[in-house]
């Protein structure tokens, strides 16, 4: 019994802070940067974090199902200057993500651009950059 309680506490403590998940920080070379694919889906989570932001999206698989993708974005400082913000995306938002796929075939992409439901474009670089 006591062991079970201690185990539960240990498991709770092991949960990442705030319930958010940690994703690896990648170099650009982890992605096929000259290939840009398009995915449409629903925002599950938007992490405004250093050194890279993360957009977790439930992507339509074309067969009526959903597949979770982790889309890696640039740093908050750069995205702020490109017109993004901490609250620009929220769970449930419909988005179209243009992304470069991971070279290892995992469901991870690097964001080139996000188009929101109202047509607003969130680019990955500030004007003139």
């Amino acid at each position, binding site marked *: 019994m006591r062991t079970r309680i201690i185990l539960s506490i240990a498991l709770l403590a092991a949960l990442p802070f705030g319930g958010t998940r940690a994703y690896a920080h*990648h170099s650009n*070379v982890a992605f096929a940067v000259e290939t*840009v694919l398009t995915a449409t889906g629903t925002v599950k989570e938007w992490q405004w974090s250093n050194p890279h932001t993360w957009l977790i999206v439930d992507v339509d698989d074309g067969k009526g199902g959903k597949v979770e993708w982790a889309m890696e974005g640039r*740093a908050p*400082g750069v995205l*702020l200057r490109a017109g993004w913000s901490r609250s620009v995306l929220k769970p449930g938002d419909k988005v179209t993500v243009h992304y470069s796929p991971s070279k290892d075939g995992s469901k991870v992409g690097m964001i080139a651009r996000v188009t929101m439901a109202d047509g607003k474009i969130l680019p990955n670089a500030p004007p*003139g950059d």
Partner: protein
Amino acid sequence: MRTSRIVVPILTVIALSSSVQTQSPPDFAGVYRPINAFGPAGGGRGARAGGPPAPAPGQPPPPPTRTAPLSDGSQGRAPTAPQLTPEYLAKWQAMSKARIAGSSENDNTAKCLPPGMPAMMNMAYGMEVMQTKDKITFFSELNDALRRVYLDGRKPTPAILDDPTYAGYSTGHWEGDTLVVDTVSLRDNTYIEGFTPHSDQMTIRERIRFVSPGILEDRITVTDPKALLKPWETVKTYRKMTSPPEDQLREFACAEGIEHAR
């Protein structure tokens, strides 16, 4: 009559003293954004292709064709890249092979390590310069990286030379309006540019000046008798920002993305 006789010499004195003041060092303090951070080959407007394309009223912009400049070495070394000795070219080739395969293992930035000199002077995310008579400090938003240039005449001691760092140890002096900086005691696990390797014998000379109002230029010469066939020169240019929010840098707490720090 008497008044003008007094006023004229006073004005002359004021004019002379202000001309003396213009000979004091220029003030580099401020926040700057790089011009062509990724160099002329891959840089400039639209370098990332996710950036805003040319506006076409009523038409949706074309989808981006790439996410970032290709930087895995698969296209070989540019003619303007540092020319490496065979030993260091072999190191570059080995790293290129790993990068083409998608490995981040040789990427210091992906590990939240500072870019180090001279790569940090790309200042891709912006630069803040702080200046006093005896010291100029350069701060990079990317990786919250910092370097100090001492202007008070001090020289690197044996203890400093025995303790290499990412930014190295920089001393400088003014030659007219140009700040001349020498940097020594650099770690050998950083890259000159991109992922061009260097040895622990690398030293750097910079000439920094305003080429026009608000446009700061850094002419960088990298010398490394072990890694380079000849000294390599590059020029970085930055534009001074004059109003918010562009004249502010944002915090870049890289450790936030490292699992053990969460």
